[in-house]
């Protein structure tokens, strides 16, 4: 074991790598862990800079014991992802703190590798992986600088060498990725502590909920249509449906068991929804979903597509929807009761509704006159509406008259219910951005929307979007298109810089490619791969065999290429054949000195052994031609090799000499 002390340079390199690896966990590690690691590294570097060694043993032990106690105090365990990562980061930092010999640095380096891999348990984004590869590269380079003798190679050479090692590892990684048996269900769940998926629709709707959401630029889901997408006015992505209203907030309620079947009309739209993880179990499908390819997926009584568990990881769902349907069945009493439930609060609204209903006894007439109120009265559409408390619908309808889709949907639904017409609010998304670089649609949180469905006898559920009565262009473009210039919106500056928006779309397309090709490669994909390789009835056992074969091939290739590099002289058949010829002649007593040219050698052989002269002269001449001549020699290397193999000089016997 090498006990030479390590230089400041080495410490600096490995500290930088550790800092980068810990940075990959920034969101998940407790702050005190980050501070401890940073201080440990900083103090050690400062000491090394001043040419001093690590702090005394007692201090180191005390710090370590304290750190371990703190981890236990915080997590109540050393198991699990969070506690394990915190412990690993702390130990790496404290090892750096006491680093004296190369051995200590090796341990820190190994911890960096582990920390990097554990970051992949938190997220599987393409950018994280790219970042981790950079860490891996730098760490390997700093390790190389430490392991080689003398002062070690400079950074540039070490980086080049480490890069080569990484590239050589690529075929191995590829073989393992393609062929390592996949489990149908993941061994561990990604952390579901609620903080990771903060934005998104929830199962309640209060005034102001959606306007906060619309400020967020996060992607909710992406959609790839198999053929042409539906027209913009029909792109309503259905989410949770709200039935219960307490005067301020809408909530979900009993959804009435299985959904009554709908009669599709018009064209079917087939598409794949790539959902981002969120806290709930619904999947945003185009209004109205008819078929879907999702294990455990079903429609709720109000036609929302859901799965059994919350979406803890990204999934792709293939869905078929019809934008036009007929609802032949009558509304069940239970559902009617639910959607016409008596309303609390908002007395002015109820009073107004009763007056209006008296004038319009017909449901459709009444509906039209309510919509007319929104178009004719000075209602404004804004992202920053005044705060409403208490009887929010009263305040909105009669006082402020400024609101966003949630306000309008809520007010409209209340007015409908007050007149005894069944109505509920549907939340979801509307529209989306087309990514022309990869032919799919991006639906962001900023596309969040709320609309109303009312039951008209004989027609079934009708989708009414009261917001479109205020600002019709709101429904035709994205939310940003309908907003006035003084509205604060993240995406406004993007409209002003088209190239930036383009770049963002391109990056998104890259991420989507990563997701479709890499992350969603599963057991089925492996089976298809084996089928493609013409392996009948693919199963786990055959997969392992193919993997073993592939790994063997890769290792053979690596060995061969390394050997070729170490022994370049062996790489050419010509040189092998020529050395064989020289060996045969050496065996009969005429060795070739290394500096002697082939033809000079032939002449010397001819002098010593006239009987061999012509053959050897011809062979050596051929060798010269093949090795030094212009391309297009008369004989090939293989022929020369055969001729050398056929050449069998006999040792000169005493009789022959005489």
């Amino acid at each position, binding site marked *: 074991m090498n006990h030479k002390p390590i230089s400041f340079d080495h410490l600096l390199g490995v500290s930088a790598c550790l800092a980068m690896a810990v940075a990959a966990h920034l969101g998940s590690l407790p702050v005190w862990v980050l501070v401890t690691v940073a201080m440990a590294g900083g103090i050690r570097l400062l000491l090394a800079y001043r040419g001093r060694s690590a702090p005394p043993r007692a201090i180191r032990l005390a710090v370590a014991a304290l750190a371990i106690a703190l981890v236990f105090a915080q997590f109540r365990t050393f198991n699990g992802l969070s506690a394990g990562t915190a412990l690993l980061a702390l130990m790496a930092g404290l090892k750096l703190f006491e680093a004296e010999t190369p051995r200590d640095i090796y341990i820190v380096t190994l911890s960096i590798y582990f920390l990097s891999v554990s970051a992949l348990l938190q997220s599987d984004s393409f950018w994280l992986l790219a970042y981790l590869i950079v860490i891996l590269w730098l760490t390997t380079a700093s390790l190389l600088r430490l392991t080689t003798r003398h002062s070690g190679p400079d950074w540039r050479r070490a980086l080049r060498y480490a890069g080569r090692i990484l590239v050589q590892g690529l075929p191995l990684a590829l073989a393992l990725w393609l062929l390592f048996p996949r489990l149908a269900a993941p061994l561990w769940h990604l952390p579901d502590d609620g903080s990771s998926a903060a934005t998104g629709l929830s199962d309640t709707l209060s005034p102001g909920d959606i306007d906060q959401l619309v400020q967020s630029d996060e992607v909710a889901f992406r959609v790839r249509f198999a053929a042409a997408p539906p027209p913009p006015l029909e792109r309503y992505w259905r989410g949770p449906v709200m039935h219960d209203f307490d005067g301020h907030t809408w909530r979900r309620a009993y959804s009435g068991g299985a959904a009554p079947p709908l009669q599709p009309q018009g064209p079917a739209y087939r598409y794949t929804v790539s959902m981002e993880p969120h806290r709930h179990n619904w999947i945003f499908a185009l209004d109205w979903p008819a078929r879907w390819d999702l294990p455990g997926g079903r429609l709720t009584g109000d036609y929302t597509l859901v799965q059994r568990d919350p979406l803890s990881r990204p999934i792709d769902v293939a869905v078929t929807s019809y934008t036009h349907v007929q609802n032949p069945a009558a509304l069940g009493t239970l559902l009617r009761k639910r959607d016409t439930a008596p309303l609390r609060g908002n007395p002015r609204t109820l009073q107004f509704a009763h007056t209006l209903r008296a004038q319009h006894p017909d449901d459709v007439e009444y509906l039209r006159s309510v919509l007319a109120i929104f178009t004719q009265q000075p209602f404004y559409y804004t992202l920053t509406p005044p705060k409403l408390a208490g009887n929010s619908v009263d305040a909105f309808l009669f006082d402020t008259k400024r609101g966003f889709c949630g306000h309008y949907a809520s007010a409209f639904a209340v007015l409908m219910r007050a007149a005894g017409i069944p109505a509920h609010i549907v939340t979801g998304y509307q529209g989306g951005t087309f990514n022309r670089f990869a032919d799919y649609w991006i639906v962001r949180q900023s596309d969040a929307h709320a609309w109303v469905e009312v039951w008209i006898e004989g027609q079934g559920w009708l989708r009414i979007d009261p917001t479109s009565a205020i600002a019709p262009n709101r429904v035709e473009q994205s939310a940003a298109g309908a907003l006035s210039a003084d509205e604060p919106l993240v995406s406004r500056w993007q409209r002003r810089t088209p190239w930036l928006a383009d770049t963002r779309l391109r990056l998104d397309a890259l991420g989507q490619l990563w997701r479709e090709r890499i992350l969603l490669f599963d057991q089925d994909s492996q089976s298809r791969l084996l089928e493609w390789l013409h392996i009948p009835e693919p199963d786990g056992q055959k997969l392992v065999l193919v993997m073993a074969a592939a790994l063997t091939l890769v290792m053979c290739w690596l060995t061969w290429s390394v050997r070729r590099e170490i022994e370049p002289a062996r790489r050419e058949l010509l040189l092998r054949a020529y050395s064989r010829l020289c060996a045969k002649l050496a065996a009969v007593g005429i060795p070739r000195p*290394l*500096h002697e*040219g*082939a033809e000079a050698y032939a002449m010397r052989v001819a002098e010593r052994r006239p009987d061999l002269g012509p053959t050897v002269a011809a062979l050596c001449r051929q060798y010269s031609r093949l090795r*030094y*001549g*212009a391309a297009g020699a008369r004989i090939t290397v293989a022929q020369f090799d055969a001729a050398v193999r056929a050449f069998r000089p006999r040792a000169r016997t005493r009789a022959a000499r005489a």
Partner: protein
Amino acid sequence: MSTAQTEIDAVLAQINRVILGKDAQIRLCLTCLLARGHLLIEDIPGVGKTTLAHAFAKTLGLSYQRVQFTSDLLPADVLGVSIYDRETGKFRFQRGPIFAQLVLADEINRASPKAQSALLEAMEEHQVTLDGESMPLPKPFFVIATQNPQDQVGTFPLPESQLDRFLMRVHLGYPAAAAERELLSGVERRDLVNALSTIASADSLRALQARVLEVHVSPALLDYVQALVAHTRHASGLNVGLSPRAAIGMLRAARAWALIAGRDAVIPEHVQAVFAAVVEHRVRQRDSSPAAVARLLEAVPIP
């Protein structure tokens, strides 16, 4: 056999009839000429240096001039001088002996460094610049300089930097007994040279020089040349290694040698054949015997 080959063989045969028993040296001289290099012959007087130069000029159909270098030689004596012409009232440049296709610079080390460098600059640049006017030298232009290593008193030996301008240095040496016998019994050499027929011409010589550059050089051979050059830079016993110019010259000489040998590609033996002549005068050796150069070759395996 190509016409080029016939021509080369005829030239060699004819010169061999005049200079007896010096086949290798004559071959090196022709190699140097075809490689567009200049030749330094280092030997005592009376071994046939002048005869050799004259025989080459005659056989190849080149214009020939001989300059005897002495301590009072001036650059103008070599390059030429501007003379006032009274009739035309203008200066007229009187060309010096250097304006010939083959120049024999005899005993170059006896002249002053000033005169030496006048010659060497003309050799390098293939032109003469006087009074701000450049005059090209004839083509081909080939200098054979001789140097007498024996008497060092009152001489100015060429420094290494100047020696580097000569592609090769050869020694003629005493003739072998049989050749000497023939010399003594045969016809007067001067008459023999005067009676020589012209085999080649300046044009055909330039064609041959162009052919030299067509001789194939394989990467394997370049490896060998580089290994040799690298060895001279690291080997003990040498004060200075080969310059890149020397390496280029060595490769070109090897190509010319291959052409003379009738080959279309250079092989390591060709490099070895010209190695001593190209290298010896460029590396300052503590041990300057021919065996030392042979040791250099032996130390480098053919890759």
